[in-house]
């Protein structure tokens, strides 16, 4: 490596030290100029032959055709440059310098040995400050069975959010691997995603296996750092436990049409809500199945759209939650049966002429409808009135819609509206008179809503600072919880591509 660089350096020195070239261009006569051209021509030939030698060595040393091509191109450009130098002698020394820098960089930019095969690494950092009317620890969303997920709002005071550590690389010509570890502020490490995906199945097919964000609705597949608000919609919280990552396999097919159309299926372990118990059942086969489809396209040059539908089927067994019964005792209840979740989503993005750098607008909405039927068991630990089981049926829904407008370069403002409908819930133990409805206060009919506004500033595409205000009416019988959140989200390392 040193030897190659020194050759280039000596060429540059030869160029720079040639005294004729330091005469200002306007002072030379035609005769001088001819002489100068001749000299530069010789230099050029000299340079070319040396670069050629460099190219050969590069080829031998690194067996890389791409590099050889670059070096050959380099030689030609350097020659062409040398020619143009004669007309503008004053710029010569700096140009020669940059040629040297470039040649050196081109020869040595790629790391050698083991580190050359290191996967792409990126790190997402985020931190928050919360100011809430009520403590996040008492948060509940009335009318819906608790999910056991991280549904509470961002807590009071200063907190470190989850840091995401992302590794990804092609494994071989057939597979690509991605691991996303979540480093929690509580010093725990979680595996958010860890999946392999195929690279060379043909016919529009791709397959994934491992842990990945389930293709349910739209936002679920997007990492929280790329969300437009600091927290998830209420509907995601009650129907997906904030965000559903499943252990399983996914197969997706993209149609060979000019309009985007895909069909996909996922089969999973059922490791999280709406399946249950947590970490899945001890059984062969699958614990969850999900089918999805998307349709998308452009309207002119300025607008792009996508709509999607998905249907998630799980069979929770002993999916538990905490409630406070009529006696004021904290009890554990559970559900076993079938859970079916339909999700419809739509996204529309607008930017003048498709150039989103200064102004752009994004409109997004999702609708969820869940039907569950099976058996509800009251007080599984027999802590209060004793364990009893009856049938249970519910049909519940919820939706949100949000718009985010980038009104100036780096500045965006957004509004989101959340609404949940408790629909109909039928509890056999209450219908039969075995227990009163007051023993299931969390399931009592209630319509949570929330209004959220946010403003964010992006220093670059790698840094963002956000302020968000929300009026959250998720708790029955209490006035709205006013939540203010300040947040920073920064990413460092490899340049990740974001989904539409």
């Amino acid at each position, binding site marked *: 490596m040193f030897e190659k660089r020194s050759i280039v350096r000596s060429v540059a020195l030869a160029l720079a030290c040639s005294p004729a070239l330091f005469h200002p261009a306007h002072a030379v006569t035609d005769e001088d100029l001819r002489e100068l051209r001749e000299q530069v021509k010789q230099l050029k030939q000299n340079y070319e032959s040396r670069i050629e030698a460099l190219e050969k060595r590069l080829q031998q040393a690194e067996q890389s055709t*791409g590099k050889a*091509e*670059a070096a050959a*191109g*380099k030689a*030609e*450009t350097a020659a*062409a*440059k040398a020619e*143009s130098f004669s*007309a*503008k002698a004053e*710029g010569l020394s700096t140009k020669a310098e*940059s040629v040297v*820098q*470039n040649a*050196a*960089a*081109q020869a040595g*930019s790629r790391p050698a040995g083991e580190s050359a095969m290191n996967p792409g690494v990126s790190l997402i950092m985020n931190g928050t400050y919360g100011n809430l009317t009520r403590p996040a620890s008492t948060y509940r969303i009335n009318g819906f069975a608790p999910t056991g997920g991280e549904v509470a709002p961002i807590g009071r005071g200063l907190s470190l959010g989850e840091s995401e550590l992302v590794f990804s690389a092609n494994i071989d*010509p057939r597979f*690509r691997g991605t691991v996303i570890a979540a480093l929690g502020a509580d010093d725990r490490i979680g595996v958010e995603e860890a999946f392999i995906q195929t*690279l*060379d*199945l*043909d016919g*529009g*097919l*791709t397959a994934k296996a491992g842990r990945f964000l389930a293709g349910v609705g739209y936002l679920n597949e997007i990492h929280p750092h790329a969300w437009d608000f600091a927290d998830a919609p209420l509907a995601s919280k009650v129907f997906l436990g904030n965000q559903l990552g499943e252990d399983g396999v996914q197969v997706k097919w*993209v*149609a*060979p*049409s*000019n*309009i*985007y159309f895909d069909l996909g299926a996922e089969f999973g372990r059922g490791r999280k809500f709406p399946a249950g118990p947590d970490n899945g059942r001890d059984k062969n086969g699958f614990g969850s199945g999900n089918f999805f489809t998307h*349709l*998308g*396209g*452009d309207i002119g*040059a300025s607008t*792009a*759209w*996508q709509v999607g539908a998905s249907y998630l089927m799980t069979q929770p067994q002993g999916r538990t939650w905490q409630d406070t019964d009529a006696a004021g005792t904290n009890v554990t209840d559970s559900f076993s049966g079938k859970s079916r979740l339909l999700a419809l989503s739509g996204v529309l*993005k607008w930017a003048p*002429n*498709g*150039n*989103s*750098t*200064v102004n752009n607008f994004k409109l997004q909405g999702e609708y969820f409808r869940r039907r569950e039927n099976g058996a509800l068991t009251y007080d599984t630990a027999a802590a209060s009135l004793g364990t009893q089981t009856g049938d249970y049926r519910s049909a519940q829904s919820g939706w949100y819609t949000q718009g985010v407008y980038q009104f100036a370069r*780096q500045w965006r403002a957004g509004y989101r509206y959340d609404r949940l409908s408790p629909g109909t819930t039928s509890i056999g133990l209450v219908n039969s008179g075995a227990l009163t409805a007051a023993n299931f206060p969390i399931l009592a009919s209630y319509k949570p809503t929330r209004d959220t506004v946010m403003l964010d500033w992006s220093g*670059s*595409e790698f840094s963002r600072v956000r302020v968000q205000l929300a009026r959250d009416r998720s708790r029955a019988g209490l006035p709205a919880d006013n939540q203010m959140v300040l947040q920073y989200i920064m990413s*460092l390392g490899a*340049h990740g*591509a*974001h*989904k*539409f």
Partner: protein
Amino acid sequence: MSLKNNIFLAFMGLLAALPAQAALNVFACEPEWAALAQELGGDRVSVYAATTALQDAHHIEARPSLIARMRSADLVVCSGSDLEAGWLPLLLTQSGNSKVKAGGDGYFEASQFVARLEIPAVIDRAQGDVHPGGNPHVHTDARNITRIAEALAARLAKVDAGNAPAYAARSRDFLERWRSAIGRWEQQAQPLKGARVVVYHKEYSYLNSWLGLVEKGTLEPKPGLPPTPGHLSELVGLMQKEPARWIVYSPYNDPRAASFLSERSKVPAVMLPFTVGGSDRAKDLFGLFDDTIARLLAAGK
């Protein structure tokens, strides 16, 4: 109507939307490569340009329509050098099209075939959105187009061997016209040599190096970061000491920073087409350079 009928109709609709299979489908990330593929492929290729001259190829959404086009592509032609890092990898992995996977014959990165400028010695985002592989805007030097055309013609012949003679003939014809045009442009641009220029982004480094223009500053304080008042006032100071002949920007740049500096420094702001479609005259690659040089000559008097 039954559900079955509905599904059947939906599929028929999709079939009707299928792209024509006769020609080789070329997916070009930028308009300049779409134009080049069209020159070299003629009616043997069906070219789709993923972006327009009004869009910044650094910042493109991986839209569903782009994934759909990628799905049917036989050859992808892009600048490379990380220019499309924010969207192209996603199109490649989402489309399930093994013909165009990175590193294969169906994947052509133009910048790999020329010597790149401004390869950073230190790779640090404190320097802005740097491209470790060097400046990706290689097409602004017409001589680079020559090399890339040769490589692309060879690649077309490899991917679509049946039409190899046609590609060879078309590329001979194109290169002949192109080389004589380069001679003409270099002749026309003689008076521009040594002239100082302020650019918006470092998108004209290859043009400057080719025509001998001297870049005296960029409106962006660092690559990829928007102009700031502080940086612009520094440039105003610089223009008082060493006035540039032009402030150059592209159709996809916000023109306000250029006109701000122009007003204060009395240096004319010139919009160059940057790529095919960037101006009325830049209908093809020849028009692109004709117009670029004409605009520089007109404003630089």
